[in-house]
């Protein structure tokens, strides 16, 4: 039973990781690519770590896998936010079909404190 569950989680997790990499390669724009990488990548890695917890079924391994998952879930949005702000600010070109850019006239360089961020 545990083996079947582990195998299923491994296959689905690796497929989500593949979707993340495919989106990284094929999507048209930096911000859209970041969407693929952060969400699908976190889901894939989390599923694989859950598979590991199911496979060993020991307390120590499960706790370590949970620690790794929660760490990924905590750091991925922070890193994505930092990169996204820096990328928008360094003047990336958005996709030509983008029609909502709410930061367009609001995010001028002087508004940013020099030492913002962690």
């Amino acid at each position, binding site marked *: 039973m*545990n*083996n079947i569950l*582990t*195998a*299923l989680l*491994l*296959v689905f*997790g*690796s*497929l989500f*990781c*593949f979707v*993340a*990499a*495919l989106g*990284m*390669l094929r999507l048209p724009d*930096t911000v859209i*690519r970041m969407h693929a*990488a*952060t969400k699908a*990548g*976190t889901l*894939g*890695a989390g599923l*694989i*770590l859950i*598979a*590991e917890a199911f*496979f060993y079924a020991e307390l*120590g*391994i499960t706790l*370590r*896998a949970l*620690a*790794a998952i929660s*760490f*990924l879930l905590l*750091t*991925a949005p*922070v*890193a994505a936010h*930092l*990169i996204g*702000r*820096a*990328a928008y*600010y*360094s*003047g*990336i070109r958005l996709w030509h079909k983008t029609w909502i850019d709410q930061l367009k*006239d*609001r995010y*001028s*360089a*002087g*508004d*940013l404190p*020099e030492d913002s*961020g962690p």
Partner: protein
Amino acid sequence: MPVDTTLVVVASRFALVVLLISIALALVRLIKGPDAADRIIALDLISMLIVAFLAIESIYAGETSFLDVAIAYALIAFLGTVALARFLMRSALRKPGNINKIGNKGTDNE
């Protein structure tokens, strides 16, 4: 050890191959990405894929200490991503094109 692990061995082999292909795809984006931000995102994705790869390797090799390696690698990769994003932010602040944006500050919004 569980009794019959052939299914898990086959699945982990499949997952290792798929993850290697994914890392190769992300590496293509890392090499050709038009901006520095694309490269940083590709590097972030590659480090996340390596964490998943280490977890699968720990199942495949039956060696639980690979999980500790994965956790430590995730920590270091997060620090690297934050440092690269900060670097991108700093270099964007110093870019000459942004002088105009600084001059525009608070013109017509509120």
